[in-house]
Structures are given as C-alpha cells and as structure tokens.
C-alpha cells in the first residue's frame, strides 16, 4: 500500500476526532494522532492484515518550545511483510503539576522499550505502563532533560556533574 492508501484506511477506521491533519512532504505522509488513542491506533496498524506494521523502527521526541502543546512523540514504523513504511506522531503537553504523559507501546512492539526510555530521559516525557522506566543513557541521579530546548547545552555543575557526588 502506498502512503495515501494507508492514511485513508486509518481515517476510515478512526475518523477525524482521532486522526488530525495529515502532512505530506516528498511523498511521505505524517499523521498526527490524538495522544490518548495512540495505543488503539498502533494496535490497528500492527494487526490489520493489509497494514501489518510488524516492525517499529524508532520512537523519538521533539520539543517544540515555546509552541503549545510542547512535545511530540514520533513513531516510525515498517511492515516487513508488505515492505511499506509509515510515520505517526502524537502531541502532548505538560502542566505545572503533571509531566507530559503518553501510553507506552511496549505491549505492541517490544522495540519501544529502550527507545521510550531514551525519549523519557531526554525530554521528561512519561510513558505510562512502561515495564522498566529507568534511565537508559544518562546517570541515574541526574534530574535534567538535556534535549529540551531550554536546557543549557553545557549543563551546569549542579545538574550535570562530572562525577557522582
């Protein structure tokens, strides 16, 4: 299936409340999905026999600061069976009290494990129901999120010390 057919199929299944604004660039389509429906959409993408997206290439994050909602989580997926690719993303925001939160897709693609852990530590996004929500790359005691736009590139002596205290 080509990108347009995949997009149409998703629209037919979920409708405009779930699937927002398709964006097409150089024949690649990106669909924005309502964040609270991400699990249902991913499940459909994997289990529908015509789509059969059995391979999650990566999960990544984007900080759109100061735009609102602030964060995007991007899922690049591929079907080894049909040899087609697709990209979906979801926008989430954090508040004063609540971190940006989205469901983990670990239950659908096990690849999501490390990718979500990295996205979580780099952006401060919480992946709900992740089986192992430790940090992946950064020292365990750091509390900062280096890939946020408002993070000072060099870090600080207090937040990113050379050695553990």
């Amino acid at each position, binding site marked *: 299936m080509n990108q347009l057919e995949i997009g149409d199929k998703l629209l037919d299944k979920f409708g405009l409340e779930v699937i927002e604004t398709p964006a097409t660039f150089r024949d690649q389509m990106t669909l924005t999905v309502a964040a609270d429906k991400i699990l249902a959409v991913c499940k459909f993408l994997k289990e529908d026999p015509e789509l059969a997206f059995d391979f999650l290439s990566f999960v990544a994050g984007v900080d759109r600061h100061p735009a609102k909602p602030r964060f995007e989580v991007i899922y690049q997926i591929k079907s080894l069976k049909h040899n087609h690719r697709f990209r979906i993303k979801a926008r989430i925001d954090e508040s004063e009290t609540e971190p940006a939160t989205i469901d983990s897709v670990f239950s659908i693609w096990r690849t999501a494990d490390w990718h979500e852990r990295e996205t979580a530590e780099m952006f401060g996004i919480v992946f709900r129901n992740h089986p192992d929500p430790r940090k992946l790359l950064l020292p365990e005691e750091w509390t900062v999120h*280096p890939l946020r736009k408002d993070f000072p590139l060099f870090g600080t002596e207090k937040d990113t010390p050379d*050695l553990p205290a």
Partner: protein
Amino acid sequence: MGIERHLNDTVHVTNLEWFVNWARKSSMWPLGFGLACCALEMIATFVSRYDLARFGMEVARPSPRHADLMIVSGTASKKMLPAVLRIYEQMAEPRWVIAMGACACTGGIYKNYAVVQGIDRYLPVDVYVPGCPPRPESLMDGILQLHAKVMREQSIHNPRTFEIKKGA
C-alpha cells in the same frame, strides 16, 4: 675509563637513577583499553606497520595491575569517567598518562553536558597528543617524548607523587 678497563670491559658503570629510568622507559607497558575513535589509531600504532615493539611496548596489558602507561585514547564521557579513574587507581606505581586526541586533551568538539572537558581535570597527564584523531606518527612522537621525560626523572631521590585530582 677506570674500573671497566681493569675488568676487560665486561662491566658498564653508570648511576642507579639513570639505570632505573632506562629500564622503565625501555619496557613501558601500555594498558590495553580504548575509549573512542582514537583507539583505532592507537591499535594501528601497535600493529605491524608502525610496530610499537621497537620501543619495548608491544604488550598491551589487559590488566591495569601489569600496566605502566595509560593512553586515554578518545572522548571520556561523564558516565565513563568513574571507570577510567578506577582503572588508573588500580595501576601500580610508577604510572604515566598520555592524553591522546583533542577530546582527551580538552573535550574537543564535544563542548556539552555529557563529556569531560579534558581528562587532565582528573588525571595527571604527562604528554598531550593533539589531533582528531592523531596519526600513529603523532602518538609515537608523544611516546618518545614521554620516554625522554622518564629519562629526566629523579626516580630514586625525588619520586613523583601520584594523586587523582578532586574536581576541576
């Protein structure tokens, strides 16, 4: 002159310090570990084309307890730093350190939150070998300079003190 001639030139007279220094520099065993891309140039320096065996350095020791020289070859990330310091602490004295490459010298292009801005913030570096990465010739030049430095050391009467710096 003197005593050697009476013994048919079967002995050689020198001072003890020179002899100790000569022994140390002639078989200075490097620690076999690499941190980043500079390690590949270091490996190239060890093997046949450049052949560090010419300087008595062909045995890269996997155990820090056998090694005399730590070649910090590459980027030391903040997560790797505790391991590097621990390896250094395990090396027997006397021990020397070469900072190989721009990253080990200064942090190099990685002026960011994740990389130690020069291993000399924590280890007493003897020779800096700049380059990104340095060619094997550069590393060998650094090693020969270290050998010259060892020959000037007062190894008996005024030995070096070895301490890991506490913070930058």
